């Protein structure tokens, strides 16, 4: 275990270095982790303790057991201490100071120009970084200016070529530092040279692990577990953050949760870790737990917008209108032009049934971030509600093209095609969706329903799907009932009885009643009577007697028949008069 003190010192120094180089989001992230470390008793202030005490009481409800039971990393897992790099100049040059203030005012090109002949590593990096950002800014502008009839112009960051040239020259002479390597990786990635980009980023994080921006760039390049495993990374506690994040994106939620559990031992109060844990739990569909986590997160950090779209999804799923509207309002006041805020508002309108408005807000979210995956999918849902299937299909397809493993969008595509009466075509999409999430009963049931449609009427295939759904612990209990009915329809009474019994067990366990229950009881009673298993039949009949309605009469007549058969009347008579 790394000592908290050393972590704290490392992060403190790192924040200073990162903000010197204007890597603000990495500095922000590091800052969040710094206060996430459990309070140093030597220099606590009253305000700090208040901040932390409030949260820890709630946390204990959930995480005390876990943190105790979490196995500590194995013995061989030694954390290599990476020495903090020394600053190359203690006193900043005047030009650097000027450039930094230009940079802070977002005058990137000016900042870059000021530093054109500087030689200190910090100035060199800032020079290139400012140039890169200037190019990005111009690219964004050009994108809008040049938007041709075909949707997108060929706007590119015009600085990339020269940046790549200069940085690779620096790299060759060995004059590049880890920040430069990070920038080089980013440039290579944009130019589409992923292998080299990964190598450069790995080198950067190995020599300077505290730059979270580098880690997240690296994550975005790890699109498969094979790539991730192939990375040659030094052990450092930052690597655990990275792995947790990467596992999560690769849908390995339990592995990811394990990583976060371990990290929570050091960074007990990190909002980031809490939010990530909530995300993983959300994917595992633990909505209640996620809701509590988010509530707590908001209490600690009331003006947080990141990840709040996920919270709104949870609230949507729980149909908590009021809470959702409260969240939307709060986020709206904080920062209205964030994709997340628009998405939350969209969710709210969707829950209220105002689909046109919802679409408008999702569109706004997409305007702010074209690659905002969940907005595409949610917009697809809205279009489905509005019965505009072509638009829905388009939206889903865009989501799928951004991230081909988005099972929700595949599922949505299947649903849309099924709605249009093309079940055979839809099957392919359901198959795709199931490929990415094979143990979700809802997907299997949707596919089974597709097979069951009157156009296809492929019941054998439907049965197979329902069986898979049952194996995936179908929570809604549709599969068992359908299996029984299908078998009944196909005249396989033994199988039907088996599944009706199972369904009955399930309903008993959950304390449910309803038409399914009657149906099962009536079928089972008749079935056992026909097979001369009078005792079983009687048990089901007596259960039926507890209810009123036509089923009760049916049960009575069944019972009568059973008595007659049992009292030795010629059985052949009964055979001829099935009741």
């Amino acid at each position, binding site marked *: 275990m790394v000592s908290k003190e050393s972590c704290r010192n490392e992060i403190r120094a790192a924040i200073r270095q990162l903000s010197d180089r204007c890597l603000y989001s990495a500095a922000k992230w590091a800052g969040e982790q710094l206060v996430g470390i459990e309070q140093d008793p030597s220099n606590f202030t009253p305000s700090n303790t208040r901040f932390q005490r409030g949260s820890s009481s709630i946390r204990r409800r959930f995480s005390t057991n876990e943190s105790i039971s979490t196995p500590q990393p194995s013995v061989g897992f030694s954390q290599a201490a990476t020495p903090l790099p020394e600053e190359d100049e203690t006193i900043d040059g005047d030009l650097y100071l000027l450039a930094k203030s230009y940079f802070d005012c977002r005058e990137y090109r000016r900042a870059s120009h000021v530093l054109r002949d500087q030689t200190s590593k910090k100035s060199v990096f800032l020079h290139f970084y400012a140039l890169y950002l200037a190019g990005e800014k111009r690219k964004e502008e*050009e994108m809008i*200016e*040049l938007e*041709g*009839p*075909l*949707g*997108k*112009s*060929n706007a*590119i960051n015009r600085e990339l*070529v020269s940046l*790549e*040239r200069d940085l*690779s*020259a620096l*790299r*060759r002479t060995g004059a590049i530092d880890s920040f430069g390597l990070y920038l080089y990786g980013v440039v290579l990635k944009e*130019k*589409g*040279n*992923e*292998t*080299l980009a990964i*190598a450069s980023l790995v080198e950067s994080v190995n020599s300077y692990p505290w730059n979270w921006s580098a880690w997240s760039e690296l994550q975005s390049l790890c699109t498969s577990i094979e790539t991730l495993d192939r990375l040659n990374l030094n052990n450092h506690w930052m690597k655990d953050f990275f792995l947790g994040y990467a596992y999560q994106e690769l849908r390995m939620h339990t592995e990811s949760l394990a990583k976060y559990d371990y990290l929570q031992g050091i960074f007990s109060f990190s909002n980031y870790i809490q939010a990530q844990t909530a995300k993983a739990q959300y994917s595992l569909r633990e909505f209640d737990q996620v809701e509590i986590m988010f509530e707590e997160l908001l209490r600690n950090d009331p003006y947080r917008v990141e990840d709040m779209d996920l919270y709104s999804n949870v609230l949507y799923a729980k149909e908590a209108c009021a809470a959702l509207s409260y969240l939307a309002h709060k986020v709206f006041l904080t920062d209205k032009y964030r994709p997340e805020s628009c998405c939350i508002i969209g969710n709210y309108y969707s829950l209220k049934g105002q689909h046109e408005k919802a679409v408008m807000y999702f569109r706004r979210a997409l305007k702010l971030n074209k690659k905002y995956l969940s907005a595409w999918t949610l917009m697809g849902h809205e279009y489905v509600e509005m019965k*505009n*299937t*072509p*638009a829905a*299909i*388009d939206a*889903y*397809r865009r989501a799928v*093209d951004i991230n081909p493993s988005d099972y929700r969008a595949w599922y949505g*595509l299947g649903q849309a*095609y099924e709605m*249009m*009466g*093309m*079940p*055979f*075509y839809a099957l*392919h*999409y359901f198959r795709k969706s199931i490929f990415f999430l094979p143990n979700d009963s809802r997907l299997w049931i949707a596919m089974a329903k597709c097979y069951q449609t*009157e*156009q*296809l*009427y492929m019941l054998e295939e439907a049965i197979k799907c329902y069986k898979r759904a049952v194996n995936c612990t179908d929570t809604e209990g549709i599969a068992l009932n359908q299996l029984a009915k299908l078998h009944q329809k196909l005249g396989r009474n033994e199988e039907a009885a088996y599944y009706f019994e199972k369904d009955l067990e399930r309903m008993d366990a959950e304390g449910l009643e309803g038409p399914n229950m009657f149906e099962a009881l009536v079928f089972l009673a008749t079935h056992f009577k026909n097979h001369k298993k009078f005792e079983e039949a009687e048990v089901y009949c007596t259960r039926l007697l507890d209810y009123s309605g036509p089923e009760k009469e049916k049960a009575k007549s069944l019972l009568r028949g059973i008595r007659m058969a049992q009292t030795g009347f010629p059985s052949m008579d009964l055979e001829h008069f099935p009741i």
Partner: protein
Amino acid sequence: MAGLTRTAGAFAVTPHKISVCILLQIYAPSAQMSLPFPFSSVSQHNRLGLYLLSLTKCCDDIYEPKLEELINQLRDVGEEMDAWLTDHLTNRFSSLASPDDLLNFFNDMRGILGSPDSGVVQDDQIILDPNSNLGMFFRRCILAFNLLSFEGVCHLFSSIEDYCKEAHSSSAQFDASNNDLESLTHYDQMDMEIYAIDKATEELELQKNVSGSVPFHLHTPEAIFKVIEGLRVSPKESSRTSKKITETTLVASASSSTVVDTLVDESLFLRTNLQIQGFLMEQADAIETHGSSSSFSSSSIESFLEQLPNLAPELHHVHFLRYLNKLHSDDYFAALDNLLRYFDYSAGTEGFDLVPPSADCSMYGRYEIALLCLGMMHFRFGHPNLALEVLTEAVRVSQQLSNDTCLAYTLAAMSNLLSEMGIASTSSVLGSSYSPVTSTASSLSVQQRVYILLKESLRRADSLKLRRLVASNHLAMAKFELMHVQRPLLSFGPKASMRHKTCPVSVCKEIRLGAHLISDFSSESSPMTVDGSLSSAWLKDLQKPWGPPVVSQDSGSRKSSTYFQLCDHSVSIPGSVSQLIGASYLLRATSWEFYGSAPMARMNTLVYATLFGDSSSSSDGELAYLKLIQHLALYKGHKDAFAALKIAEEKFLTVSKSKILLLKLQLLHERALHCGNLKLAQRMCNELGGLASTAMGVDMELKVEASLREARTLLAAKQYSQASNVAHYLFCTCHKFNLQIEKASVLLLLAEIHKKSGNSVLGLPYALASISFCQSFNLDLLRASATLTLAELWLGLGSNHAKRALDLLHGTFPMILGHGGLELRARAYIFEANCYLSDPNFSVSTDSDTVLDSLRQASDELEALEYHELAAEASYLMAMVYDKLGRVEEREEAAALFKKHIIALENPQDVEQNMA
């Protein structure tokens, strides 16, 4: 949203257009001199005008020439004043130092347009009429410029800078950016050495190509060169031919852009939607025509198509193209993926110009087309059951959405699918699927279903005026009627003179119903098709009547010569159309084959192979080869056939569902029978039978053929009762599955069996029945051979029937000699000799030549065929005749031949080794 294309037709100002404007200004300056300054003669002036006209016409093309190329062309056009023109052009460009200069430039430009109301025009005055072609172009440029925002002007300005810089740098043979690039790649290679990552090399290469700094050298459209050549050759006549020149310009430029490098030119994406759509259509045609051949590199197109969506994400047609490309390179998963993606984005409303836009399409999309395409894709990849399910769904959906066009196409696709799948295999599939169309017909046989589907599709296509579909449906209909003879119950019999649709004339009639497609398909052209994709010359050729090949062989040859001309212009024929025409020739060949006219069949096949071989689908091409090889085997002997087979094997063995193997087995069997190698023959029969029952079902026709061959093998082995058993069973099968043509040949076989077994009386009714069958189905060649058998049977009854037999033979001799194969002819000759010899009134000594001639002919032909049995018979007869004539030497010769053949017949082993 929903994949609807944006309004097309934006006319963007580009540097190239500005240079055209500058030249225009030189051509027609606002100062009203009779002849502007640099021109020394009127003809010189006119030539520049013509050149400008062709330039403006080319402006809708995708690729625009670079400044350097333009200057080179000017050099050719301008002769002595070229230096002045070039200088003026470059000076003008270099004077554009700021966006403001651009603004002033266009303001000046407006001055050279003549005002529309200036009615009084002085004689020599040069005015640019605003409504002329040049004037319109000019006005469009000005308008487009005026619509630009300031940012747009800035971008135009910077692209003009690039435009000039490129010309300068390339002329100076020193390119700074190029140099940079080299050093860049050098660095990259250093990096690679450091990292030692194996995969990087390819990516680096790719990236090098992609990066925009590689000077992209464009091939100058040949069109312009042509114009220049035209100008140079005939400056005097140019005004007269000007129209023609521009026409060819359009056509040629359209075609030249398909050959152009597939690298992405940056300026390409400033083009309009329409232009790119047109370009993509051309690419699609290219993929379809070259797709099957290996020479066409699908990967180069693929890499180009991969970049397109990055740059033009709203252009969904690209996905369809990628699908096509993948389809032709047999990549199932990628094809499926791209097909689905295309339809998800476009909702089937983009790129399908054959479908007239209807009011409701925008709301619901046209996903039924997706189903249709998916069905055809599954079919192509060999999943007929899946394809049928999908097509059934397509039928349902198009009925729901009342999309008759799609329905017509789907029905046609379905009937095609059903007819291709063979007979026995489909019944189970159709039974399981639920469909409004097929379920109504569930009680019918598959053939009837195919027929109904075709009829329905034809009716719809006819009413919707879908010419291509109508044509292909007629073709399919003719094919269907050819393959499945309908026997009217009432008027059956040899006396009722009636025509079945198997008659080549009626086949041609049916085909001709679809032929007006070719002269008509230009009217079907849509805004999508590239302007001028149809050459007028080509159409002119078609105006000439092209009668059915029935008239005479002479007319056929004339026709093919027009088609040779046609082939020169074939770039402009859409691939699908030429495929259709090609298929119609194949069908004609088949119908002549049935009819029994070998030369006509061969001619039609040859026409197909020479003219449509390039554009044909591989399966059609294979079929043509098969036909030609079969012809070779029949008329030239086995040696030639096997040599040809070897070539065909190399070419087509990779094709899915190849029929080459089938043909090989048939040929081997044939040859084994001739050589008397019955074991091998039996083995071939068994293998054929094995081919007939695949995993998918039973191919009835193939099965019938296999048992027919088995019966023949048994016959050759002299196991008569078994052979007749097999034949009887076969006849029942044919009757059950309504295979009429096969019935006729089975009957003939039965007659043959009885003849060989010596029961001529029993054979007679079979032979007669076969003849009547042949007569009613217009199977003339088969009828001739049945008549021959009949004659043989008569002779078998005794020598007193020799006269009658001879008469019968002489009646069919023209047919046999004109169209029959080697074997049939030899048989006829031998039989003739036999007849004469057995005729008591015939004396050998006086009339020996009649007999000897026939026998010599026969033995020559049999030599090529390696048919030992008959050859032995012929030499035996010859020896006998010589013996009677007392010509001892020749007798010994014939006897030696006889001995040779008999020995070969009895020792077939050594022949087998040759074959293996």
